[in-house]
């Protein structure tokens, strides 16, 4: 597994994007593991009766994709300290969702390297459906 060190990070650099395409089956399975049994995530009729265009992806599943974006990037020794996100728009199943991020700040605190990032998710129409921030800590190169 790859290692990412604090010294490798430059402000403004991009996090390698993560592309996800949640399926309707995945939404049902997410309901099981997450306990989010809100029918707007698997019952088309119910979702429409609530004024939604159709079934929507659970916010916290999308949140998990942002977590994956970060852990794929930081590797074995990276630690997630904070992950905040606002659900700006609805995500729909069977659509390609691209998670992206950028380094906005790096600093050392208590001997640990910290990196602040801005994160977002884009739908196929280029709209940002999620936007957020994260702080990860990374080891220093020996």
């Amino acid at each position, binding site marked *: 597994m790859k290692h990412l060190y604090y010294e490798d990070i430059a402000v403004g650099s991009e996090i390698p994007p993560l592309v996800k395409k949640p399926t309707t089956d995945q939404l049902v399975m997410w309901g099981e593991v997450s306990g989010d049994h809100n029918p707007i995530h698997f019952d088309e009729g119910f979702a429409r009766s609530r004024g939604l265009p159709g079934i929507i992806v659970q*916010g*916290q599943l999308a949140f998990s994709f942002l977590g994956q974006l970060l852990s794929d990037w930081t590797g074995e020794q990276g630690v997630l300290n904070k992950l905040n996100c606002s*659900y700006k728009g609805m995500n729909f199943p069977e659509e390609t969702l691209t998670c992206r991020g950028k380094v906005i700040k790096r600093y050392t605190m208590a001997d640990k390297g910290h990196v602040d990032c801005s994160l977002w998710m884009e739908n196929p129409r280029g709209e940002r459906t999620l936007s957020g921030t994260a702080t990860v800590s990374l080891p220093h190169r020996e």
Partner: protein
Amino acid sequence: MTEAIAVLKESIGVERAVGIYEIKRAKIASFALVIGDPNPLWQDIAPPSLIPTLGFARILPELISLFPTLLHGSTELECHQPVRAGDRIKVSSKLANIRQRAGKDQRPVVFLTIELTYKNQRQELVARCRQVLIAQ
């Protein structure tokens, strides 16, 4: 809706126990599988995004019953230490705030802020989470 808000307002700031959740290796594995995250890290350590789902099933039904539509506004997760296989995580929650404002068509929109705390079997703080839910 006004009635639902009145009921909830009485519970602002009151911390309540949600439950204790054992983090089994199988749970970590199925969680990573559902996300589609094959990272080998997720065997002894749980993906941080698993934390906000602990106890979520206990909090949601009450709110779904009170409001016709409930959407997620934001999630803020602060991790203090990793959650590991074998941990027993105690979740407590409190309703921190309710705000109401007129949305489109002047329909009222209610923002519910819920704060959750997660402690392990050694009573160490592992994480905090703030969830904002939007009710219409």
